[in-house]
C-alpha cells in the first residue's frame, strides 16, 4: 500500500508482494467486498459518502457504489439506527455508522430496546440483519466524550452480537460475517488501531463470529484481550519472552458469541489468567469472563484471576493523565509478573 513507508520497511521484509494494509483501509475493504457481493447491502451514516468518513474508514465507497448505496445522513443518531432497523426488517442489509461509540448514548433506545428485542417480543416474526459500525476506544486525547471503550455497554443487552477486531485481516473477515449475520451486530472499530498495519485479508476471507484466536501461543499464563488490548498484550508478552517467560495471548474477537471454550482450554494449559480490558473495571466485560472461569474452570487455576482495566473515572484529556487511567504495556507486564509470582 502506498502509505506503508519509512520505519515499517523492516517489518515488511524483502518480498514486494508482502505489502501490509492498515486497519483503516481494511474497514473500507471489508465493506466494499460485501457491497460488491450483495446488492441488499447499503451504508448510512454521517459524512460517510463523499467525505469518505471522518476516520477515512469509508474512503472510496461513494465513488465505487454511488449515492444509491452509500447514504449521507444528518446528525440524527436515532434516525440512523431507526432507519437501519426498519430497512433490515424489510429486505435490506444496512450497515449504519455511529461516528463515535460514545454517541450510542443518544440512540441507546435502538441498541437496548428495539434491535435486540423485536425478534423475541414478536415470537420470531421479524429478522433484523444489520450492522452498527462505530469508532471506539481511547488513547488519542479526545477527552471523556469521544474516547470511551463501550463494548461492555452492549454486553449488558441480550440480543446483540458484539465484534471488536484487533487487526486488518480480522476486520475484513469479521465484517463479512457481521454483514451476512441474520442478527443485529455491533462492530467496534478501535480508533487507536486505525493506523496500525497487518497482513491483508485474502480473497473470500471470512472469520466466523464467536471464534477467538490464539494470537500468541504460550505455556505459563493466559492473557485474554480484545481490540486494542491485543497488541498491548502481545507487546507485554514479547517483552517477557526476553526474560524467558512464555505468555499465551487470546484475542477474543467477539464478546457475543463469547468463545469461552478457547479461554478455558488455554487456562487448562497455563493455570493462570489475566484479562486486559479498556473499559472501566466497574461493569467491564472481563467480569463476565472471570465469572465463567471461576464457575467452570476453578480447578484449572493455580492463582487468582486478575483483571487489568481502566480506572473508574471519566477519561481525562492529557496523555499523561490518560495513561494513568487506561491499561498500558507497562501495567499489563506488571500484572503478568505479579500473577506469575503468586
Amino acid at each position, binding site marked *: 500500500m502506498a502509505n506503508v513507508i519509512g520505519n515499517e520497511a523492516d517489518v515488511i521484509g524483502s518480498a514486494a508482494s508482502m505489502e501490509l494494509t492498515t486497519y483503516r483501509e481494511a474497514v473500507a475493504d471489508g465493506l466494499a467486498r460485501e457491497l460488491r457481493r450483495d446488492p441488499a447491502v*447499503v451504508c448510512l451514516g454521517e459524512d460517510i459518502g463523499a467525505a469518505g468518513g471522518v476516520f477515512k474508514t469509508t474512503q472510496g465507497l461513494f465513488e465505487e457504489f454511488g449515492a*444509491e448505496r452509500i*447514504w449521507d*445522513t*444528518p446528525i*440524527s443518531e*436515532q*434516525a440512523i*439506527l*431507526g*432507519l*437501519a*432497523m*426498519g*430497512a*433490515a*426488517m*424489510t*429486505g*435490506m442489509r*444496512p450497515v449504519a455508522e455511529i461516528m463515535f461509540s460514545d454517541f450510542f448514548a443518544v440512540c441507546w*433506545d*435502538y441498541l437496548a*430496546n*428495539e434491535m435486540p428485542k*423485536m*425478534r*423475541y*417480543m*414478536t*415470537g*420470531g*416474526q*421479524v*429478522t433484523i*440483519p444489520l450492522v452498527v459500525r462505530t469508532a471506539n476506544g481511547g488513547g488519542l486525547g479526545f477527552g471523556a466524550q469521544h474516547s470511551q471503550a463501550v463494548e461492555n455497554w452492549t454486553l449488558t443487552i*441480550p*440480543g446483540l452480537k458484539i465484534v471488536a477486531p484487533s487487526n486488518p485481516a480480522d476486520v475484513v473477515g469479521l465484517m463479512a460475517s457481521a454483514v451476512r*449475520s*441474520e*442478527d443485529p451486530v455491533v462492530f467496534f472499530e478501535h480508533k487507536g488501531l486505525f493506523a496500525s498495519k497487518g497482513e491483508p485479508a485474502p480473497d473470500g476471507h471470512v472469520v466466523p463470529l*464467536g*471464534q477467538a484466536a490464539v494470537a500468541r501461543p504460550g505455556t505459563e499464563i493466559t492473557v485474554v484481550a480484545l481490540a486494542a488490548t491485543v497488541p498491548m498484550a502481545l507487546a507485554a508478552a514479547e517483552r517477557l519472552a526476553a526474560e524467558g517467560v512464555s505468555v499465551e495471548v487470546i484475542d477474543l474477537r467477539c464478546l*457475543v*458469541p*463469547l*468463545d*469461552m*471454550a478457547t479461554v478455558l482450554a488455554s487456562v487448562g494449559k497455563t493455570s493462570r489468567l489475566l484479562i486486559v480490558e479498556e473499559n472501566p473495571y466497574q461493569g467491564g466485560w472481563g467480569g463476565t469472563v472471570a465469572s*465463567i472461569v471461576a464457575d467452570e474452570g476453578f480447578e484449572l487455576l493455580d492463582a487468582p484471576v486478575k483483571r487489568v482495566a481502566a480506572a473508574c473515572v471519566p477519561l481525562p484529556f492529557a496523555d499523561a493523565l490518560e495513561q494513568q487511567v487506561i491499561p498500558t504495556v507497562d501495567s499489563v507486564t506488571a500484572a503478568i509478573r505479579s500473577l506469575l509470582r503468586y
Partner: protein
Amino acid sequence: MTTTTVGTDQLLALYEQMAVIRRTEKAAHDLFLAGLVKGTTHLAAGHEAIAVGASASLRPDDYVFATYRGHHHAIARGATPEECLAELMSKATGVCKAKGGSMHLTKAAAGMLGSYAIVGAHLPLAAGAAWSAKLRGSGQVAVAFFGDGATNIGAFHEALNIASVWSLPALFICENNLYMEYTPIGSVTAVPSPAADRAPAYAIPAEVIDGNDVVVVADAVAKAAERARAGEGPTILEARTYRHFGHSRTDPATYRPAEEVQEWLERDPLDIARARLAALGVPVEDVVATDERAADVVAAAVAGARAAPPPDPADALTDVWADGGSSWRT
C-alpha cells in the same frame, strides 16, 4: 356527501371491522377485570376509524408500525381477535407466542411490523421501511401511527426531517386524542396542532382530519399513499379522536371534563359510520346483522383464547437469534 374512495358495500365491511375492534377492546377490558389479563392494556376504543380507514386505503404489502395502543392496528391489518386476546391472556396461541403482550402486538406476515412501547421510537423505523421500499423500487409505503405525545420526542423530529430530505414514501399519522397520557397535550406543546403544525418546519404537507370518520380517514390516507407512491415524499395526517377508556388499565381518566367526554362519545366513530350507512340507504337490519356477526366473532375469540394452552416454559429461551435459539457462548 363528497366524492370518496369508499363505496357502500365497502363501508359496511369497514363498519364491521370497527365493530369487531370495539368488542375486542371491551372483551380485553372485561378479561382484565376478571384477572385473566396481566400487566397492562392501552385500549383503543374510540380510535377504530383511524386504523380501519387507513388500512382500507393501503395495499396488502404496505408496512404499518404502531404503538403500545395498537390492538386496533393489528386487527385492522389482519390479526384475528382470538390471537390478539390469546396474547393478552398469556396463551401459547397468542399472536406473539405470549412473548410480547398487549403493548407489542405484531403480525409481520400482514405487514403489521410491530407495536412499540417506547414513545416515538417507531417513526424512524417506518422511515427505514419506506427507505427500503424506495431502494427496492417496490412501490410500497410505510405508515407510522403515533399518539400526540410522541410529537415532543426527538425521534419524531429526526424521522420527519430525514423522510422529507430523502423524499421517502412514508405516512406519519398522529392519533391526537388530546391527552399525552394524563396531561392535556395542549398544555405541554408549543403549537395547537402538535403534529400538523410541525410539518412546515420539515417541508412536509399536513392535514388535520376527523379521525372518528372512517371515510374521511380512508380518503386522506388514499391521497397521501398515492402521493408517496408517486415519489413525492411523506405526508403528515393529524387525526383528531378520543379515548373511550383511560390511558392505560390503571387510569380512570377522571382528569377529563365530563362535558368533553360526553361531547366526544356523541361523536363515536361507530355512530358516525352508522349515520353514513343510513344516508346511503343501507337498511338498518343489515347494520344490526353486522353488529351481531361482530359480537359472534369476538365471543368465539374469547372462548378460543380462554381454552388455549399456556406457553411451553422452554419457549422462554427461544427466538432471541435468527437460528431460533438464545445461546450467547461458543
